[in-house]
C-alpha cells in the first residue's frame, strides 16, 4: 500500500479513574499494531514525548468538574479533527456526577480539611455538554474490543459497529438464562446499552448499568417491575444512581423515586 501519512492520535484526560485510557494499554496483542497504524502523538499516561496538534483523532476520557477543565476541553476540541469520548465519565459525567444531586460545598467541606484550596464546579458534566462530540463510546470502563473497533473504523473510514440496543440482546445471543425471569434477580440489562457482552448476567449478577441507558430506554417500566419484586423506592434510586447517574433517562428515574422514598 502507498505510504500514507499516519493519522495522529491524542488521548486526553479529565476527571476520571484512568481505566478507560488504560484499556488502550490493555490491548496487549494489538498495541504495537495500533502504534504502527497511528502516530501516538499525545498520550501522557504512556509517553513523555508529545507531538504538537492538530490531531486527527482525540480520545477524551473523564468529565468536566473544574473551571480550568471547562476551558481546556475547548482547546482540545479545536485541536481535534475527530473527537471521541470514552467511558461513562466523558459520556455521562461518571460516578463523580453523584455530586450533581447534592450541594457540592457541603461535599468539599466533608472531605477536605481546607476546602478553600479546592476549586471545583457544582456539577460533573459530560463532554458533549461543552463541545460537539463525533462519537461516544460508553462503558465504565469501556470494552477494549469496542475501543479497537472504533479505532479500526476510524482508520478504515467506516461506521463503528457499536450498537445502541439493550444488554439483553447480547445476553440472549450468548445463551444466558435470564436472571430477572428465572431467578428473580433485578437486572438493569433491559434499559442499558450493550457493549460488555452481558458480562454481569454471565456471572450470575444483575446488570448494574455501566454502559448507561440504551436508546429509547424505558426505566420506569422496569422500576415498576422491581417494585413488584419487592424493591423499595430507595433501592431504585440507588440502582439508577451509579456510574451513569446523570444520563437523562437514569437521572429522571432516580429523581422520580427519590420523592417517593
Amino acid at each position, binding site marked *: 500500500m502507498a505510504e500514507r501519512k499516519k493519522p495522529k492520535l491524542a488521548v486526553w484526560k479529565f476527571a476520571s479513574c484512568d481505566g478507560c485510557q488504560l484499556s488502550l494499554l490493555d490491548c496487549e496483542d494489538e498495541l504495537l499494531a495500533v502504534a504502527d497504524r497511528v502516530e501516538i502523538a499525545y498520550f501522557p499516561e504512556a509517553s513523555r514525548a508529545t507531538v504538537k496538534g492538530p490531531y486527527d483523532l482525540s480520545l477524551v476520557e473523564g468529565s468536566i468538574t473544574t473551571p480550568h477543565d471547562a476551558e481546556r476541553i475547548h482547546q482540545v476540541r479545536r485541536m481535534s479533527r475527530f473527537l471521541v469520548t470514552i467511558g461513562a465519565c466523558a459520556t455521562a459525567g461518571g460516578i463523580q456526577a453523584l455530586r450533581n444531586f447534592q450541594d457540592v460545598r457541603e461535599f468539599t467541606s466533608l472531605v477536605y480539611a481546607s476546602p478553600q484550596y479546592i476549586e471545583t464546579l457544582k456539577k460533573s458534566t459530560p463532554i458533549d455538554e461543552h463541545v460537539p462530540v463525533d462519537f461516544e463510546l460508553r462503558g465504565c470502563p469501556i470494552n477494549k474490543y469496542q475501543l479497537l473497533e472504533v479505532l479500526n473504523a476510524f482508520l478504515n473510514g*467506516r461506521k463503528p459497529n457499536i450498537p445502541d440496543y439493550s444488554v439483553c440482546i447480547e445476553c440472549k445471543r450468548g445463551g444466558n438464562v435470564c436472571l430477572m425471569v428465572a431467578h428473580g434477580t433485578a437486572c438493569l440489562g433491559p434499559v442499558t446499552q450493550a457493549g460488555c457482552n452481558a458480562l454481569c448476567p454471565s456471572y450470575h449478577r444483575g446488570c448494574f448499568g455501566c454502559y448507561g441507558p440504551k436508546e429509547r430506554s424505558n426505566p420506569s417500566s422496569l422500576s415498576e417491575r422491581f417494585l413488584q419484586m419487592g424493591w423499595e423506592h430507595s433501592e431504585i434510586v440507588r440502582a439508577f444512581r451509579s456510574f451513569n447517574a446523570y444520563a437523562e433517562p437514569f437521572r429522571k428515574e432516580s429523581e422520580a423515586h427519590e420523592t417517593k422514598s
Partner: protein
Amino acid sequence: MAARQDPMIPLPYRIETVQRETGDTFTLTLVPAAGDQIGPFAAGQFNMLYIFGVGEVPISISGDPSESGKLVHTIRAVGSVTRAMQRLKAGQVIGVRGPFGSSWPLEQAQGNDVVVIAGGIGLAPLRPVLYTLVKYRERFGKVILLYGSRTPEDILFRRELEKWRQRFDMEVSITVDRATGRWRGNVGVVTKLIPRAPFDPYSCIAMVCGPEIMMYYSVLSLKDQGVPTECIYISMERNMKCAIGFCGHCQYGPYFICKEGPVFRYDQVESLLNKREI
C-alpha cells in the same frame, strides 16, 4: 467458482468511470473485474454495492437495461458508505450483488401514456425507464417526465434531460424547491406540475420515485386527476442488510421491499403509506 453460489458473496466489479453529477451525487460505471458477472436487470431493480472493509448499501441501477455487461449506479453521498464511494477512483474494485427486487411496469405501460415523476435522487432508478421509453418510443403514448430538485445545482443528468426536453415526442418539466442563480424555470414542489401535465388519466401508467412524502402527495394529485390507483407505481426504500429476504430489515407491512419491492403498485401499499412509522 464456489463463491458464485452464495447470494451473500459480492462479485468484484472494476470502476470504469466516475462521473460527478452534482456536489453530492456521482455516477459509477462498473465492469466485471474477474469474468463473472451478475444477471441481466430490469428497470427499477437494485444492486448491493460493497466497498472493501467499509460496508454495503442498496443502490438502484441507473443505466440502460439494454446495454449488457456494464452497470451504472448514481449515488448520493449521505453517510459512511456512500461517502466512501464518493472517494473511489476509476480502476478500483467494488463488490456487487444483485440484481434484486421488482421492476417498473414497462410491459403494462405499452400503448398507454407514461408519466414519470421523480424527486431528487429518485430520478436515478427511473432513468432506465426513460432510456427504454426513448428507445421504444413508438410503443407508448405520450411520455411525460416531471422532475423536482432542491435547487438548480442539484439537478441530475442535465445533458440527458436537455436532450429529452428537446425531443418533440417527450414532455419534460423541471421544478426546483429553491431558485438560485439564473434559474428561470418552475419553482415549487413537483406535485404542482401534475395538474398541468397533458396526459390521459384514464389511460396512463404513472411511475413515481422520491422521498416518501413527495410520493404520497404526488399520488394524491394523480388520483385527483382521475388516475386509478392500479395505474400508479412507486418505489420504496427501507434499511437492507441482505436484499435476499433473510435479514428482515426491509419489511413494509406484509412486504419485503427487497422481494416484492422496491417498486409497488400503489394499491398494494396504499393503506400503509399514510401511517406513521410503518
